[in-house]
Each structure stands twice: as C-alpha cells, then as structure tokens.
C-alpha cells in the first residue's frame, strides 16, 4: 500500500509545464483536504485525476482552476505562480444544467466569456460557431436555449464554450458523469479527438478508472485523508484509442488493474470517505 507521494523528478526537462502543483495543500478551516500535492501537466498532455469518492478531487480541480486558492504550496500555470483564475484556462463543470445560463441562447452562453475578455462581438460569434462545429453541433443550435437540448448536447455546448475561449489548459470536473453510457463514450471520444487535433492540454477529474485509463497520457491517483498523490501512472497506450480495441487490449487491462489497486488501497485508508468502495480481500 503506497501512501507516499511520488512526484516526477524535477529539472530533467526544459519544457515548462502547462500546469504544476508544488506541495499544494488545501484546508477548509481545521479540516485538511489536500496535502503536499505534487504533479505537473506538460503541454499537450491529457492527465486524469482519479481517487475514491470524497477524497478531494473536486477541491483539487478548483485549486487548479484558481477558483480556490491553495492554503499551502503553490500552483503554477505556464511557469507563473497563480492564485486566481488565469487567462487561457477554461473549465467544464460536471453539471451542465447548472453551468449553462438558462436565460441565454446557446450562442450567448458561449460568447459571454469572450465578450467579457475583450473579444469583439463579431469575432466572438465566429469563434462560437466554430466551436459548435468542433463539438459536432449545427449552427441552428446556437439560437436555442440550452435546456431545449438533450443532456449530451448541453455538455457539448459547455465544451464548446471552453473551446471558444482558446484555452491553453482545459480543466474538466467529472464532465461525463451526468450523461448515459453511450453519450459518455461519444463525449470521451469527442474530447480525446479535440485534444489530439487542437493540441490541447487537458486535466480531467473522474472517479471512473476505465475512463481515466482510456483518456490519459498520465494518471494522478489521489488517496488518503488529507489526500496526497499515491502515484503518478504513465499510460502508454499510444495516441489513437478506440472504445473497443483499446479497452480490450492487455495493456489496458494491466493499467486498469494497477489503478484499481491503488484506488482500493486508497479507499481502505480513507476513514472520512463514507461512500468509499468496500475492500474485498483477495
């Protein structure tokens, strides 16, 4: 059972990480949630953060987005210390029905952040329509209200909003947790494809181990209370992935088993997680 952080060796690469947590910790009052989190996300990488329910994944993502300031350690975005939301960092929330504005058309939902950051009306609309096309939605959807669309389409709109923002780093908080299985697979492939095509840096939080292995170049496994990095797992499954082929490969199974073991061990040592998976001794 590994409960010690294993940060990557620093200084071996001259590439500036797009996102870097250094000894990052967070506490709500006396309750320490995160402690000594060390990991980095290189430009163009797809990194998933996994861990048992309630371990503090969402808190970590909020710290990475700058919505919450870490109470210890530091967050660096493109090498610079960040204590608040940074330009070029876009966020996709878990619950599309809460993160999209019900009073605005889809188009206006996408352009609001752009207009707020000084993009002209015309360019904002152009970028919005381009982003809609990138997530596979037709132009006509732009005039509809988000709640007139299906759940999967709404989450596509939320992704389009993030894409139109031209992000260097895309943060996603359990983005596929509120949709059905088929839609989930479609959205996974959509995000994977966009990440490859646009060279995005993606950091995605999920509780689904299969999903994390399928999507990632690297998995950060959180464990314990307060949560630390149990292990950073490199995923070497190549750039092109397929829902059936990749998931039935031996490498996939091995990685999946490895991460499962880490998360189980994590659940076993997390006394505060009421919803933790039960530990079945084998």
């Amino acid at each position, binding site marked *: 059972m590994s409960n010690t952080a294993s940060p990557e060796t620093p200084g071996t690469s001259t590439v500036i990480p797009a996102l870097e947590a250094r000894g990052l910790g967070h506490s709500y009052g006396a309750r320490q949630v995160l402690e000594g989190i060390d990991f980095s996300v290189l430009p163009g990488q797809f990194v998933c953060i996994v861990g048992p329910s309630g371990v503090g994944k969402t808190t970590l993502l*909020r710290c990475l*987005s*700058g*919505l919450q300031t870490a109470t210890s350690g530091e967050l660096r975005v493109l090498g610079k210390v960040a204590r608040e*939301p940074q*330009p070029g*960092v*876009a*966020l996709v*929330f878990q*619950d599309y029905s*809460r*993160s999209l*504005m*019900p*009073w*605005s058309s889809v188009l206006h939902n996408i352009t*609001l*952040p752009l*207009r*707020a*950051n000084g993009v002209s009306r015309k360019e904002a609309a152009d970028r919005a329509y381009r982003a809609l096309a990138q997530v596979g939605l037709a132009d006509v959807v732009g005039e509809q*209200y988000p*709640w*007139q669309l299906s759940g999967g389409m709404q989450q596509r709109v939320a992704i389009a*909003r993030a894409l139109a*923002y031209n992000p260097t780093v895309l943060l996603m908080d359990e983005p596929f947790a509120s949709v059905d299985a088929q839609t989930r697979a479609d959205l996974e492939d959509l995000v994977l494809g966009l990440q490859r095509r646009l060279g995005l840096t993606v950091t995605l939080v999920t509780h689904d181990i299969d999903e994390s292995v399928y999507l990632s170049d690297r998995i950060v496994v959180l464990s314990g209370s307060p949560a630390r990095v149990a292990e950073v797992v490199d995923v070497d499954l190549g750039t092109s992935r397929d829902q059936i082929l990749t998931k039935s490969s031996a490498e996939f199974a091995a990685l999946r088993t490895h991460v499962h073991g880490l998360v189980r061990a994590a659940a076993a040592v997390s006394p505060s997680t009421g919803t933790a998976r039960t530990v079945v001794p084998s």
Partner: protein
Amino acid sequence: MNALRRTTSIVAIELWLPLTLVIIWWVVSEYVNSLYFPPLSVIMQSFAENWLNPENAAANLVPSLQVIFFGYALAVIGGIVLGATLGLVRPLERAVRPVVEAMRAVPGVALLPLFIVLFGIDQQMRILLVAYGATWPVLLNTLDGVRGVEPTLLDMSRAFRVGRARRLFGVILKSAGPQIFAGARIALAVTLIIMVVSETVGASGGVGYFLMTAKSEFRIASMWSAMVALGILGYLLNIIFRIAERYILRWHRLQQARLERTS
C-alpha cells in the same frame, strides 16, 4: 386563420366574465331604487363625461398617471439597486436587516402625514410616497433573487474571468429576473393604492381627488365612475406589465412550460 381563431378564443375567455357581470349589474341596477347604487346607465354617462371627455380626462387622469409613472419607476429602479446591493454585500445586509424589517412593516399610506410635513402637498410628495411604499416588494424580491443565483454560474463567471459589471448585469440580475418581476408586480398594486390615498389629501386633481370631491358633493354616480375608471386603469397597467414580462422573461415562461410538460 388558425391564429385568428386562437386570438378570438383568448379574447372570449378573458372577456366572458366581465361582460356577464356588467350585464347583470346593468339589469339589476335599473330596478334597484337605492341612492347609493345608481343605475349603471347613469354611471356610464358620468364616466363618459368625466373620463372620456378629453378636457376632464386630462384634469382627472394626468396627475394620477404622473404619480404612477414616476413613483413606480423610482420604486423599481431603487428596489433593484438597493436589493442587489444588500444581496451582494452580506455584512451590510445583516447590519440593516432589522431596520428593513421594521420599515417595510409600516404601510406606505401610514407615512402620508409625515411626507406632507416633509415635502408639502404637491405632486413631488405623492411621487416620493409611492416610490417609498412600492420599493419594498422589489427590494426584498431582488435581494432573494440575487442570493439565489446558482453558485456554479458564479464559479463559471469567475473561472472565465468575467468582470464585475458583466457578472452583475449579465448573470446575477438576469438570474434574479423572475423574482424581480414578481416583486414588481406586487409593487404595481401598491403603487395604485398609495396613488389614490395620497390624492385624497391636498390634491387639486387626479383620481383620488375626484373621488373625494364627488363623495363630499354627494355625486354618487361620479364616485362610481371613478371606481370604474380605476378598475380599467388597473387592468390596462397589468396588461402593459404582462407584455413586458412576456418579452423580458420569455426564456422563463418557455422553460416553465417545458417543465410542466415533462413532469
């Protein structure tokens, strides 16, 4: 053709009850021999003379419309500004809450004597009294609405670095829109009440003034005509309000309709 039929049926649904009541009133009042309940035919003659004749209508109606328009506008704007401020600045809200509770508990019309002492008996006093009394429902509803904004939307605004002004006008107030409108609807009723009562003292025109003089001169039919005029005025103001609401809160109406369909 279809649209025409639908409009006709809406009009029919809206009008059948008032028309029936008017007919019953008309017929019954012809046979009731009471000083206080003159025949509707007589009331309508008085109505035509006092409220449709341009010269009289100007004297009787324009001062009231002034009070309604300016008083209500001040109330809505003031209520939104104060309500949003209190909703966004928690410590301030906590500090002034007891005062707010006490002040809104005092009916606006109870302050009429004080306002006369402070501002005299002209139009300005009446506008301020309406503004004061009608502010409360808007203020309290805006306060509630501003506080009830979906936290995820506030996170979204911050994460995408949306500035204060756009966050306030584009997210917070839009989100509070349905509640602000609910407050504004109550404020409209309050406006009419305070307008009439404030015109009963020291005014030289307006619906309230007309009512009082008709009463003291025992012109009962005129008195009734003023009440008919008030009823129609209230109905028309409500229609204007509803049109504004349908336009501005279109999203909300459609979303509610959808929720009703799917549940």
